[in-house]
């Protein structure tokens, strides 16, 4: 496997579905960071066959619900002093707050200023979310 220096302090986002790293990179605005960020594509993985990995050499605040929505199989490892101090398994969140917005033009969220966009998990197997206001399915 391609060798990337292991990091002393930071975050490793592991088990990303192949091809998913760039979406997460953009979603977390990693291009705005000054620290080093490594994106590893198509890494070998026993579990998935192949996977993507992102290594960030800094502790950053992440919206784990948003990450869980993008890919619920992701693992987030927090690194301190060169060792993993915590391993977070993600899952589909029950509620999405300000992560996606309703596309129903008849929904109050289309006109109400500074409204909090809320979606509720309707079907976890099919990954279906519905707007908490108008109940329309997000597609």
């Amino acid at each position, binding site marked *: 496997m391609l060798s990337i220096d292991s990091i002393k302090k930071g975050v490793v986002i592991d088990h990303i579905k192949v091809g998913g790293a760039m979406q997460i990179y953009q979603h977390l605005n990693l291009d705005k960071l000054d620290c080093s960020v490594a994106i590893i594509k198509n890494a070998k993985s026993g579990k998935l066959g192949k996977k993507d990995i992102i290594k960030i050499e800094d502790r950053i605040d992440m919206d784990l619900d948003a990450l869980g929505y993008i890919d619920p199989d992701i693992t987030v490892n927090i690194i301190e002093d060169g060792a993993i101090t915590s391993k977070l398994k993600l899952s589909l969140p029950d509620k999405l707050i300000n992560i996606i917005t309703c596309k129903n033009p*008849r929904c109050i969220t289309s006109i109400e200023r*500074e409204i909090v966009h809320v979606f509720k998990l309707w079907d976890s197997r099919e990954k279906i979310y519905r707007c908490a206001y*108008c109940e329309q399915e997000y597609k």
Partner: protein
Amino acid sequence: MRHVIEPTDLSINELDELIALAEDIRLNPVKYADCCKGKILAALFYEASTRTRLSFESAMLSLGGSVIGFASADASSAVKGESVADTVRTVSNYADICAIRHPKEGSALVASQYSGIPVINAGDGGHEHPTQTLTDLLTIHTIKRTLSGLTIGFCGDLKFGRTVHSLVKALSLYPNNRFLLVSPNELRAPDYIRATLANRGCEYQEGELLDTHIRHMDVLYMTRVQRERFFNEEDYLRLKDSYILNMAKLVNAKSDLSILHPLPRVNEISMEVDGDPRAQYFNQVRFGKLIRMALILKLLEIVEWRGGRC
């Protein structure tokens, strides 16, 4: 503090309590005539719905309370460009309870999140209209003395009619009801309604012709079929008369059938039916006022949930 945004905000027990209170109000109106003295209802109507607004206003006045509000978005420049959240926060300082009608879906939920007073959803676009469902339940209960063991027919546009969906859902919570869903194929009840009925073990049948099913019905809930909902002119012409209720169709119906309609009607019930004792759609309007009186009393905690009396 409680709000009523959708029918499911109320439990079966609470529905039964509301119905019992509405029936007591009907029989003893004097007892309730001053219950809301000094209380103010704000009727926030962002779109015109004269029927619903008058019902709320009449309900509050008959309880001895007063009403403020506006009747359409244009009527109040103060509301123009103001968010629902800000309007309701302001109104919370003027009134004790509010009823909101707004063309956008979910608006009443937004109102309830910022309101300092109980909010009643008086219709949020095509989404929910809980006091209509309560009206329908009270009407059926008053006439049939039960909400169980009935065969209830729904006829017309069962696809887009939220009134129908809410009422089917509510009635499916009561035991042994049977549902006859009569509509053109294009306007069948949506999947989730059929799934709800199946999940709750309710017997239901679907059909295209009212004549075939009307003889079994204890209640017939009529809605309008609009020409523009049909995919082609041919089907419209073939089926349009099937969804107009007249005396000829009633020949086969039970003598104690109750005919309901959310009103306003256009031509889906012909006027010759109005004089038949089975026509209940104008009585339904009175029940609408009574159930709103009951709801106001409960939400203002003037009559407590479970047992309390004025």
